[in-house]
């Protein structure tokens, strides 16, 4: 009798321990899950609220629309009609905090006193500076051999589009050019941001 009672008591204890053990395990699991969720959300919070400023910081300053002024070029009056000529001017180039005066030039083909075509000197293929070949009457890019006619048409080579014309105006016999740059390597003429 006594032995039996003792045995059943032991059994009871064993059962209780088992139930407790399962419960503790279950509790630690929910607790672990909760902590995982908390840690992920807190770290995520920091990542997002730091990541957002960081991306704006790195990229945004260069997506501001810039007003490009018309700049007077050197002697438009004296150049010969019909022959592509390089005309230069100084522009204030702003890169970050630094403002620098830079000398740039463009290809100008004078048609008459009041009419001209202005080509950007940058090859639309990959951004090299091309030259005028007076013997062949062609524009030649030294980098990859793109060839353009005097009208800017592609005659040969890898250039995806004709030469880029630049907006300009002629006032009192003086040529004013807007120094714009276009994305190279694509068939469309698209302003660089």
């Amino acid at each position, binding site marked *: 009798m006594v032995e039996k009672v003792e045995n059943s008591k032991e059994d009871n204890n064993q059962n209780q321990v088992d139930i407790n053990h399962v419960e503790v395990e279950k509790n630690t699991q929910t*607790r672990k899950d909760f902590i995982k969720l908390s*840690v992920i*959300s807190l770290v995520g919070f920091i990542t997002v609220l730091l990541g957002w400023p960081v991306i704006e910081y790195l990229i945004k300053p260069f997506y*501001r629309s810039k007003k490009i002024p018309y700049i007077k070029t050197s002697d438009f009056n004296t150049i010969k009609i019909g022959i592509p000529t390089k005309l230069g001017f100084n522009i204030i180039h702003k890169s*970050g*905090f*630094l403002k620098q005066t830079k000398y740039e030039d463009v290809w100008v083909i004078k048609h008459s006193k009041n009419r001209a075509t202005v080509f950007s000197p940058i090859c639309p293929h990959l951004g090299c500076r091309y030259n005028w070949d007076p013997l062949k009457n062609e524009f030649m890019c030294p980098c990859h051999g793109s060839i353009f006619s005097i009208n800017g048409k592609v005659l040969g080579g890898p250039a995806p589009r004709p030469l880029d014309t630049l907006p300009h105006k002629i006032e009192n016999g003086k040529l004013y050019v807007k120094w714009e740059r276009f994305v190279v390597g694509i068939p469309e003429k698209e302003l660089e941001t």
Partner: protein
Amino acid sequence: MKTHSSKTEHFSQWVNARFPLNKFMDWSLHEEIPGGASFSYIFGSLLLFLLGMQAITGILLMTYYVPSTNYAYQSLSYLQLHVPFGWLIYNMHYWGANLFTIVIGLHMIRVFIWGSYKKPRELIWLIGIVLALLTAGFMFTGPILAWNRITYWAGEVGLSMAGTIPIFGKFAQSILQGEGTIGQVTLTRLFAFHVMILFPLILLFIGLHLIAFRQQGSSGTWNQVKRKIKGLFWPDQILKDTIVMFIAFVFLIWLCVYFPVPFYGMADPKDTFFSPKPAWPFLFLYQTLKFFKGRLEPVGIVGVPIILILLLVLLPFLDRKEERNPRKRPFVMICGFVFVSFILTMLFFGYRSKPASTAIHAVQSSKVSFQQKDISQKTEKQQSFHSDSVVSNLIVKKDPKKTSKSQKTTNNEFETGKKIFTTVGCLDCHTANGKPSHKAGPDLILALRKNKRNKKWLYTQLVSPQKNDPDTFMPSYSYIGKAKILALVSFLKGLETTKKPIIKVISKSQKKSLQSVSPKSNLEKLGKAVAFIGDSHHGKILYDNFCLKCHGPQGKTYASGFHAPPGVPPLNPISRNLYNSNQQIFVNNIDSRLQNGRPNPANGPDMPAFGDSHSLTQPEISDIEAYILHLNGVNRTEIIHPGVKPKSFFFIVLEIGILMVLFLIIYRLLKKVPGQ
């Protein structure tokens, strides 16, 4: 779902066959903490988090920063005002560094109280000291990179101090400084040290610190009963660490928004209105060094840091009892308390004190006081800007025959008075060559010989001219101090008896040569000053010294009790032709007047050409410009492209943070998540 989990399992198997990823995670996360996780153990993780933030913000700063003496300050100003969230990144790096330093202190105090440096953790403690010293290196080199007025001089003091250490000092100084004077090479080198030497070193030593730490495991509580309860690093301690990181992050943003670093103005090697002091983590050292005077100075400079470091290094070897309970080791606790309170007291007094003439003597002696700078600074090292001595040397050119004789007879006071006379602005209105003058004031030799004023009258004339003549527009010079006024008085008295003209007027040819000193192309009419963001507080000090005597207190020529000279315009409010609500246009508008001067339309004094004559440096002009803008309600340091306005950003952070915490609390209550 099943395929997904089997796929990830497959992937992790693939990785683990090639790299001990699981072992590494196990090593870094699974650890028992005797006595359970606690908020008192968060400092290490917090430091790691802050270092990560410093690395991120530091790299981001480098994407805009230029380590050049000409452009460092400008590029950082641009970054803060024109780059979206530039203000956040810059201030975060600044406040992160300060927080890092403070948390290192707290971490060390925690380890000390818990006795966690004891056997077998001595090496963790020693590596920790190396980390603290590396941090000191960061805190020394970092600020100088900003190249502003405060940090430039802090660097100058620090490097000079290093140079006074016997034998090794000159060597260390020349490695860090590169050349004889602090300049471009110094900046480039300190930049290299900061990012390419100290940073890899701190990563290396943190690695060692962690490896040594994991080897022994967490020291846990000292209570033997509580030690039987075992907590886990993951997840228990990690949760507490993350909560603290979250709070630290929000706290950092709060600091950046409400306490942004002020614009101190461009570093100015010729500045004479600023007293140099080291960065705050070194103030305790700086204050302690004041006890060591004269020949003891180098002893202090070497001895004090060595003793402090030795005390820390020897701690685990001197205190070798096993007992960790702080209540049972009162002697060590008292020693620690004395050590910490000594450092804190010295820090406090160092913060409050004015620079002493002991430790920074070398620097101070090279920084000649303003009134003498034109004459005596010519041979000094700080000629990296322009030499403004050119002008006054021409003005003060003496008759060579007369010189030898007069030097014997004139006393020192007369000579000092003459120096003051040529530098404080008397020559703006007066001449002293014995001929009638075209200037606003009378020629002093003629006037003094005619009127025979006594010393008392002259003194009053300098201190409060209106007492002698209520209608005069002569400004008061009381600000230069009694000693200098007395010297001026004896100089003026001496003028009565001098036979030959002492002050020569600049001849036309000399004027031309002066102009060739500062060539101005038509393209660049504006001075360099317009590119610097000035400090209006420093601008006020300069204004009071250079501009107040004509333009009145705070630019109010109409202020009661102030006698403005005729033809001098008020600056507050300034003429509407010059005013602009855009700070850059406003500065551009007023710049030429400060640089080139302007003739007076009435018979008052002309506006001096502060820039052309180099009587003010470009950084100083930028400060005065900032102050004039401030007087007219325009903020020179307004953020033009903030991304999101600082305060709005802080509220966004706060709102999202609160919502997230609320969500976690509700989740916890609903799911009945048990406590530890």
